[in-house]
């Protein structure tokens, strides 16, 4: 007998349970109930987000493929598959393994699509580093990412990290992976063709991640059991073998479908492969390789043990598949077959346990969630700029900004990641976007992750648009055409209307911005319930974007290259301080509105930059973001450690407040540097695109000097700047509290 207590503690509502009863026309078995609970959960079923996610654009200037588990675009005959996914909650309790298994999970999504993983990125959020636990989280997460990615041999080429109190108690760990395949080598995640075999491959099954479902256990939990952790130990070595074995079986032509067992493990893999293939699966549990003794069938069905996959194999070819897996010392066993009626039928030693129509399981209910504009916005959206006093020493402000961990160099982080393996990384981390070449072609991929969640907090719609615009801007600065997006939407409890309002507006913002730039959203992931006792984390719709470079010789980086180059500012600086790092750091204010965003102007600035790079006219391109003009210029001077180059910026002549001029975060601005002889041609390009262009100074020397109307505002040595910026994070971590 299933009691209301049981299904409720599995997360099913009364209404949902009634629906199950009416669909089945009988009471579900325990195993069936566990499967429904898993499939209809937020995590697998996207029950409160699916309605909204529908609006994200599925097409763009590059032909887009929306796959079952990941998505991508086509460039000539190459498919570029990519996706970002969250692993926030496991990382909060066990940062190293949580982050490691997060990386492992997303990379499995890529190679089960048939693509060889060629790069990883991430997007991380932590609470303030003044708290020891947040330091521990940062170190642990970075350690987990390096441990897993380095061992797999997939370069981690970029990412972003921000620190803010809103993430105290709930860090965000979003991992992104990119893979490539020949167009015709892609694999599907479905099962079809009556009589074909269903094989289980990879690691054995244990009681990992069955936490929520343990209410189903009929026996009393004994001591160790009850505290069974939901965190797992990552095994990159096993996964590395799995990658090689999987790509090898896919090349045999005997594999019809393959799916990773991720969330909800076998349940999800079986029911979705059957339903996506419009067929049924009949399988026997007793053949499944188990790691622990006395596992109940429902435990096997919902276990989330790592590094396992389900494969649909042409009848008669099982042996060939098995041989490849044995070569890599991995399991491969036949556990069932494809059947014509669209049922999921599961046996345990000949006893029937589950008999459900596949798409009943996979068609989770969809809910329209109530939403309401949050109260806090009224309070914080207006900022009286007149009460913000201008500082007296801009040198100090600049140094403090460069020291702030969200702006400081992330070298301490990316030096721990192998970012060169596979011999493709043409632009290493440390520039606006990383660039990896596509061997055998003249092309390259640029990739970045971006999101300023403070903007999203102040203005979810525009904040999300800015995340897309900034990602595109970063790609353009490397010489790439923005091509497609993956997103990872990190929000609070969706059942709270104010949180859902944030979510809805961010999704709308992403949609509108992507449509404007004509880039598709090829894949993504939603993570709700990111809350701490003080409330939800800032709405954080992390954007991962990839761009295409047609000519690998036309790649650009952000740092100044030569002495005596001209420094050009594209775009317009407004008198706005809302949401800026400066306002937070110096005035301890999180107020105002997110910066203005004029998408047309954004496009004009980007088109100008891209055309100038392609014409070989510019020597460097860097977009302005957190910390504004002063920080952006300083980065141009010092982000190439091997060659620091100073700058004299003496032609600003702006008529806005000095702090806004130096540290305001107006959007749609890019700093270029070029030889004097190229200026006229760049001007012509800017004019054609109706972009505002101003020569603001020139490079050279060993100081960074900024003045306005003959007023010296900043004058610092490069050594001081470089030391402050590049060692800040290391110092924060090493300092004792």
């Amino acid at each position, binding site marked *: 007998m299933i009691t209301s207590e049981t299904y409720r503690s599995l997360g099913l509502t009364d209404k949902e349970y009634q629906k199950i009863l009416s669909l089945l026309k009988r009471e579900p078995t325990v195993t069936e109930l566990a499967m429904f609970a898993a499939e209809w959960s937020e995590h697998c079923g996207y029950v409160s987000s699916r309605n909204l996610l529908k609006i994200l654009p599925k097409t763009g200037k590059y032909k887009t493929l929306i796959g079952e588990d990941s998505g991508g675009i086509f460039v000539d005959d190459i498919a570029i598959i990519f996706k970002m996914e969250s692993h926030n909650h496991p990382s909060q309790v*066990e940062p190293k*393994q949580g982050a490691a298994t997060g990386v492992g999970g997303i990379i499995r999504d890529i190679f089960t699509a048939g693509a060889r993983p060629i790069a990883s990125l991430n997007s991380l959020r932590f609470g303030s580093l003044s708290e020891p636990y947040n330091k521990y989280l940062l170190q642990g997460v970075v350690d987990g990412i390096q441990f897993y990615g380095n061992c797999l041999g997939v370069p981690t080429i970029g990412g972003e990290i921000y620190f803010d109190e809103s993430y105290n108690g709930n860090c965000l760990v979003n991992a992104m992976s990119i893979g490539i395949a020949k167009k015709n080598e892609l694999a599907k995640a479905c099962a079809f063709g009556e009589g074909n075999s269903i094989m289980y491959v990879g690691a054995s099954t244990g*009681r990992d991640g069955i936490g929520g479902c343990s209410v189903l256990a009929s026996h009393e939990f004994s001591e160790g059991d009850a505290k069974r952790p939901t965190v*797992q*130990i990552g095994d990159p070595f096993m996964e590395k073998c799995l990658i090689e074995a999987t790509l090898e079986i896919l090349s045999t032509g005997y594999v019809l479908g393959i799916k990773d067992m991720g969330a909800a493990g076998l349940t999800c893999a079986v029911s979705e492969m059957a339903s996506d293939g419009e067929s049924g699966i009949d399988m026997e549990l007793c053949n499944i390789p188990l790691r622990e003794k006395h596992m109940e069938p429902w435990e096997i069905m919902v276990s989330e043990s790592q590094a396992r996959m389900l494969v649909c194999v042409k009848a008669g070819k099982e042996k060939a598949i098995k041989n490849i897996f044995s070569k890599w*010392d991995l399991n491969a066993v036949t556990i069932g077959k494809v059947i014509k009626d669209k049922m999921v039928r599961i046996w345990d030693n000949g006893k029937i346990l589950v008999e459900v129509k596949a798409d009943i399981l996979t068609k989770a209910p969809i809910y329209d969630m109530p939403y309401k504009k949050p109260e806090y916005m009224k309070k914080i959206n207006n900022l009286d700029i007149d009460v913000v006093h201008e500082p007296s020493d801009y040198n100090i402000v600049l140094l403090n900004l460069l020291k702030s961990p969200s702006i400081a160099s992330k070298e301490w982080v990316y030096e721990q990641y192998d970012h060169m393996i596979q011999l493709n990384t043409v632009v290493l981390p440390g520039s606006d976007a990383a660039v990896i070449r596509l061997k055998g072609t003249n092309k390259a991929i640029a990739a970045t992750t971006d999101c300023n969640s403070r903007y999203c907090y102040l203005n979810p719609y525009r904040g999300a648009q800015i995340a897309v615009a900034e990602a595109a801007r970063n790609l353009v600065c490397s010489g790439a055409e923005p091509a497609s997006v993956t997103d990872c939407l990190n929000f609070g409890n969706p059942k709270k209307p104010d949180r859902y309002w944030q979510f809805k507006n961010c999704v709308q913002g992403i949609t509108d911005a992507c449509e404007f730039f004509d880039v598709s959203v090829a894949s993504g992931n939603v993570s709700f319930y990111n809350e701490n006792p003080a409330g939800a984390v800032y709405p954080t719709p992390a954007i991962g974007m990839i761009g295409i470079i047609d000519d690998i010789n036309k790649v650009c980086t952000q740092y100044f290259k030569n002495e005596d180059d001209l420094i050009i500012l594209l775009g317009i600086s407004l008198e706005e301080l809302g949401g800026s790092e400066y306002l937070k750091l110096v005035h301890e204010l999180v107020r105002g509105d997110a910066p203005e965003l004029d998408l047309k102007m954004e496009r004009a600035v980007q088109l100008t930059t891209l055309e100038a790079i392609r014409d070989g006219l510019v020597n460097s391109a860097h977009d302005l973001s957190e910390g504004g003009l002063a920080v952006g210029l300083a980065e141009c001077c010092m982000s190439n450690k091997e060659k620091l180059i100073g700058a004299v910026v003496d032609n600003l002549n702006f008529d806005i407040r000095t702090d806004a001029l130096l540290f305001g975060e107006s959007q749609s601005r890019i700093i270029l540097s070029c030889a004097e002889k190229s200026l006229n041609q760049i001007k012509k390009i800017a004019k054609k695109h109706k972009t505002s262009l101003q020569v603001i100074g020139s490079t050279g020397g060993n100081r960074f000097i900024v003045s306005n109307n003959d007023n010296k505002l900043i004058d610092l040595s490069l050594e001081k700047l470089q030391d402050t910026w590049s060692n800040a994070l290391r110092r924060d971590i090493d300092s004792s509290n």
Partner: protein
Amino acid sequence: MLKAKVYVNLKNTVVDPQGLATKNALKSLNYEREIEEVRVGKLIDIRLDMSDRKKAEQMIDEMCKKLLSNPTIEDYSFTLEEVE
């Protein structure tokens, strides 16, 4: 002077990839039949410049909880002995 020997082990319910790899390696070294299970943990030796055993015990316990192990996935134990 006191010396603490701290043993940190993965919980029994957690898979230990390192132990598994070591087990397989030992098996291929011809200990095929005998080896049942291998688990690899940490052994941390700490020399303390103090003599109060009680206090030392408390301190080591604290360190284990705070830094040396993660109770989510690991168990720890320790012994204390007098040394020169």
